[in-house]
């Protein structure tokens, strides 16, 4: 194998000799189509169908449609052409059955923290990710970002060769270059050797770095995570004197105050938290109304938690901190003067919290100041939360330090020329570093710098060496989850482009020329398994289950330090009227920009704004009103750190007097997808104001910039689409969501003797995280269409998450999320109007779509009252540059001119049906899970057989809250919703 890799490398070197800069990247791109390269790749992975051929194979569908229609139609498919090739293995991998999917447990990290996944393999290649039910952070669910990592794996824009100074180099060259430096370094005890990583939770990496430190005492290890949790860490240190991590138990929490909390969007363990939260919100319809939790939220920029809150209060950053301080004071954790100026509603909240001592919880997001976090710890203490609704564990991050300080130090040393060998393991600091560090320029001064990265990015081009990083699905590794649980990451395929893992790179320092990641990892664990019984057995179990048994972090016994209040930094001054504060927030999907080249994420509508393919300067409608700004007006943003131009977008429920600058966009050196998308907010983000920067000036430029939003009408008009009530109303009238249904019909009642598939979507559970949309996109080969098409409202998502506001646009009383897949109406209006019968019912009552019969009249879409059908206006799938083997082979790739829509994942139903029929038994409940159901962290979506009274879905539909949308049209939808319940605090309602 290695030999073949090397002569690939040599061939590539030959091809690229003398090329540099632009030309280099372009030819790299061409290279990916080079027969020579393809040849090597294919023989490297017999499992993969030949890339070129696979492409053709996939395209054959399209050809069939475009090709001469002389006889094609008469015969249904073209006259027999050469059927192409069939390529078997040379040696069948053990346990592989061609055509049968296999699951392997591993983990994918996000900001260093692991989410357990199952990689689903077809013909020996991973095609999809699902959550690992045995993993504490995932419990079988997945968020869009982790799901998209499979797309990242197959991203053709990932870097494929070693580069030095823009020229292609061989691995040996790199190893040699590193070896050459070792003697000098050793002599200096490692002085000038620096390591820069993101948040590290990997025990193995920690072990390796530890060893490296022992060998080079003067080496320094720097950390930088752009959307990191410095404030959380510092807050803990302020409160307890040492860093600890907090693990929440929302299933125990009756009353919760979320302080711009990321508990439902992105906090480590948010999937788990979402599930616990949702369970308690479903309690009333399951007959335990007293268990329903109550959620308060105070925040500047809307969060998912805020959207689900029973009472949401918008306040600027200063206002938020004032609230927390006042709350602390009320609970005796702070001086009385903090109370003054507290908003009226706080009293009621305090009463509610302290009334539920031991079942109350306060949580603050990473964008809040350390003071807030410290106070939150104090408040929780006062509320008797520790041990009940929150518990403290030893930090999951290895050797936690303050990332900001750490990076600052590195920048200073680089500027001063004290760094001569710099290893950057992942991450893209040249892009994400605070503006005032001027990191990019100083990085250029480092004589020998190695960047290990999965793609050529802003940092790669500044380093003397770039090493293609093996994707997490391509390499051996380990990582810890929010509660410390370790997962061993096993490679799902050989590195497609011969990437290196950080473990392997560090091992080069131990004199290894071809380090073996597997051996390195195994060493760590064999050691730690020693003396705990059969190490080999534990190792295989860990691999099989995807978690290392009882590896969760030890609980930390901490006690609150006295006189916390006095040690806190002063509260931020309330900005005098008029001046705006800028809030820096990560884009929900691109985070710090590392996912910018993933089409799925670019096109996934952002919560609240429903924006795609762009970031925007977000502000409250009132603020926009005051400044005379409309959506899409371009303004010049001036701060002490610089200025940039950004389009404006109004966000209902945003706090006044502050504007949000989402970062992660505006990448410069990036693949084809992420190029020229959005503006770079990092350019304004200073180190000492990572999350909020006062004194921003906006100047209207008079220009406008079109933004691609997917929902243009968000204020609820018709009361029937989203039905809701308060807990009390529900108690008095449980059937409030029911309406009079049309009783008689012209049409006969079809009966569905075998199965009657149906879906129930619980609006009490749904947190609007879009995991369903992303999962559906991956499972069903849904194409990415690009900004121009979204501007024409041609996005293809089969299940969309509608976002509704009620009340006045300023501060909406309520935000509702409603996932909308196909309703699979029994009297489907779409079917009747199709002139070729391309869509019809099957015996299980599914509203199915035969893509290849569709001629594209689009009448079905016009006639669909729910507007859930999507049309291929162009050859979207064909124009997509993703590698052909990344498509799901169980689902047709749709061609130009064809209508498509949610099929309840018919491919999964058919698979289960065949399995069941082979054993001549009925399909068991839960045997078929749709992709959206699988991914939903909140268990909002349940799918199953309506003929089976004991099926989960039948139970859901038996709920009094169950209702169908637009049933007055006598469409008889199979997909129904459970109405949303709110649990408002009566005291506040009166106020």
């Amino acid at each position, binding site marked *: 194998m290695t030999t073949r890799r090397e002569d690939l490398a040599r061939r590539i070197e030959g091809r690229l000799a003398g090329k540099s800069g632009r030309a280099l990247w372009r030819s790299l791109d061409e290279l990916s189509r080079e027969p020579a390269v393809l040849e090597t790749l294919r023989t490297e992975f017999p499992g993969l169908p030949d890339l070129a051929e696979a492409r053709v194979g996939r395209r054959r569908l399209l050809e069939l449609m475009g090709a001469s229609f002389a006889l094609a139609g008469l015969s249904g498919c073209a006259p027999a052409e050469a059927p192409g090739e069939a390529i078997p293995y040379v040696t069948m991998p053990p346990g592989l059955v061609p055509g049968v999917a296999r699951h392997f447990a591993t983990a994918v990290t996000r900001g260093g923290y692991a989410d357990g996944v199952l990689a689903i393999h077809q013909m020996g290649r991973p095609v999809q990710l699902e959550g690992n039910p045995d993993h504490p952070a995932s419990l079988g669910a997945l968020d869009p970002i982790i799901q998209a990592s499979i797309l990242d794996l197959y991203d053709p824009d990932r870097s494929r060769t070693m580069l030095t100074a823009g020229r292609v180099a061989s691995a040996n060259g790199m190893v040699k270059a590193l070896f050459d430096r070792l003697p000098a370094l050793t002599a200096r005890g490692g002085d000038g050797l620096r390591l820069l990583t993101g948040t590290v939770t990997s025990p193995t990496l920690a072990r390796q770095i530890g060893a490296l430190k022992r060998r080079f005492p003067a080496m320094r290890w720097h950390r930088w995570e752009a959307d990191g949790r410095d404030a959380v860490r510092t807050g803990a240190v302020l409160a307890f004197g040492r860093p600890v991590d907090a693990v929440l138990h929302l299933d125990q929490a009756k009353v919760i105050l979320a302080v711009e909390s990321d508990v439902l969007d992105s906090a480590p363990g948010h999937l788990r938290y979402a599930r616990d939260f949702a369970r308690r919100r479903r309690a009333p319809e399951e007959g335990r109304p007293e268990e329903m939790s109550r959620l308060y939220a105070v925040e500047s920029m809307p969060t998912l938690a805020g959207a689900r809150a029973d009472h949401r209060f918008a306040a600027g950053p200063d206002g938020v901190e004032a609230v927390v301080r006042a709350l602390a004071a009320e609970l005796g954790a702070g001086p009385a003067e903090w109370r003054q100026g507290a908003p009226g509603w706080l009293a009621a909240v305090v009463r509610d919290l302290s009334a539920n001592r031991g079942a109350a919880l306060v949580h603050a997001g990473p964008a809040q100041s350390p003071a807030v976090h410290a106070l939150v710890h104090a408040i929780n203490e006062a509320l008797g939360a520790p041990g009940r609704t929150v518990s403290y564990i030893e930090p999951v991050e290895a050797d936690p330090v303050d990332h900001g300080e750490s990076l600052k130090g590195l920048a200073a040393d680089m500027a001063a020329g004290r760094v001569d060998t710099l290893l950057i393991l992942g991450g893209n600091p040249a892009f994400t570093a605070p503006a005032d560090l001027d990191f990019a320029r100083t990085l250029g001064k480092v004589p020998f710098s190695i960047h290990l990265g999965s793609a050529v990015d802003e940092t790669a081009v500044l380093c003397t060496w770039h090493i293609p990083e093996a994707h997490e699905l391509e390499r051996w590794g380990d990582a810890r989850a929010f509660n410390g649980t370790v997962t061993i990451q096993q490679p799902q395929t050989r590195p497609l482009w011969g990437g290196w893992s950080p473990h392997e790179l560090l091992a080069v320092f131990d004199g290894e020329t071809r380090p073996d990641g597997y051996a390195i990892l195994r060493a760590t664990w064999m050691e730690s398994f020693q003396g705990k019984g059969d190490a080999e057995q534990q190792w295989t179990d860990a691999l099989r289950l995807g978690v290392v048994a009882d590896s969760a972090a030890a609980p930390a016994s901490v006690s609150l330090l006295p006189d916390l209040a006095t040690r806190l930094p002063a509260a931020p001054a309330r900005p005098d009227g008029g001046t705006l504060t800028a809030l820096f927030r990560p884009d929900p999907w691109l985070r710090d920009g590392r996912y910018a080249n993933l089409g799925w994420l670019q096109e996934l509508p952002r919560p609240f704004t429903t924006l795609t393919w762009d970031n925007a300067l977000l502000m409250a409608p009132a603020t926009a009103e005051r400044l005379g700004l409309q959506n899409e007006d371009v303004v010049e943003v001036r701060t002490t750190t610089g200025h940039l131009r950004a389009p404006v977008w109004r966000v209902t429920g945003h706090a006044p007097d502050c504007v949000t600058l989402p970062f992660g966009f505006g990448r410069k050196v990036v693949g084809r997808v992420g190029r020229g998308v959005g503006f770079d907010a990092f350019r304004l983000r200073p180190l000492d104001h990572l999350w909020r920067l006062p004194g921003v000036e906006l100047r209207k430029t008079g220009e406008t910039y079109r933004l691609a939003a997917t929902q243009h009408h968000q204020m609820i008009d018709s009361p029937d689409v989203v039905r809701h009530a308060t807990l009390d109303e529900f108690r008095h009238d449980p059937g409030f969501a029911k309406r009079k249904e049309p009783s008689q019909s012209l*049409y*006969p009642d*079809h009966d569905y003797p075998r199965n009657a598939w149906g879906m129930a979507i619980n609006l009490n559970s749904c947190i609007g995280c879009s995991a369903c949309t992303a999962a559906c996109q991956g499972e069903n080969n849904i194409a990415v269409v690009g900004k121009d098409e979204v501007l024409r409202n041609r996005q293809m998502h089969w299940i969309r998450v509608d976002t509704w506001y009620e009340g006045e646009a300023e501060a909406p009383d309520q935000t509702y999320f409603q996932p909308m897949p196909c309703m699979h*109406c*029994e*009297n*489907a*209006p*779409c*079917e*009747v109007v199709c002139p070729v*019968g391309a869509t*019809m*019912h*099957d015996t299980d009552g599914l509203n199915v779509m035969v893509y290849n019969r569709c001629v594209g009249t689009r009448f079905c879409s016009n006639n669909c009252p729910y507007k859930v059908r999507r049309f291929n206006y162009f050859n979207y799938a064909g124009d997509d540059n993703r590698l052909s083997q990344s498509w799901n082979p169980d689902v047709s790739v749709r061609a130009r001119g064809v209508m498509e829509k949610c099929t309840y994942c018919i491919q999964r139903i058919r698979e289960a049906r065949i399995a069941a029929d082979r054993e001549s038994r009925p399909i068991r409940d839960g045997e078929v899970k749709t992709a959206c159901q699988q991914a939903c962290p909140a268990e909002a979506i349940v799918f199953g057989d309506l003929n089976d009274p004991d099926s989960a879905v039948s139970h859901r539909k038996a709920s009094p809250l169950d209702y169908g949308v637009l049933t007055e049209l006598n469409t*008889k939808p199979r997909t129904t919703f459970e109405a949303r319940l709110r649990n408002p605090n009566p005291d506040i309602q009166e106020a």
Partner: protein
Amino acid sequence: MTAHRGTGHTFRGTLAAFDSPDAMLEALRRLRQEGFTRLEVYSPHAVEEVDDLLGRKPRALPLIVVAAGVLGAVGGFALQYWGMVLSYPLNIGGRPLNSWPAFSTTTFELAALAILLVGFLAFCAFCRLPRLYDPIFDAPGFEHASQERFLIWIAEREGRDDRDLLQRLLPHGEGVRIDEVPA
């Protein structure tokens, strides 16, 4: 020798041309009284009375067309019934397989189609069209029949010489004698 040539005249005969339909009709009437049977009229537009004088009643075409219409309708409905109920029955939007109200429009249209096509073909058949050549076209002055003249063709009666008789019968019209119509 008396073989019909489509337009119903024999080789020998007389072609009389008139400037007005009334004169033509007058002559025709007299010819009938004298017992001339094999006559044909060529005119630039239809003249109602001619048919009565020549005693010809059209019946076939309407019947054929009606029959075609009925067949078209029945066939049209049968086609749809076959496709939707018998050949490949599918549950389309929960509608009954035999959605006859929905089939009615197509049934009507197909009936109309049958009428149009059959009607035209039958018309061609009855008029023996297309027939690019006919001896009558070679008759001198015949081209006026499509413009402003009204012609009567009087077939010569076997073994009789009607010249004087015709002279008498058509005094005002200028009769034209044709000896031989080149075949």
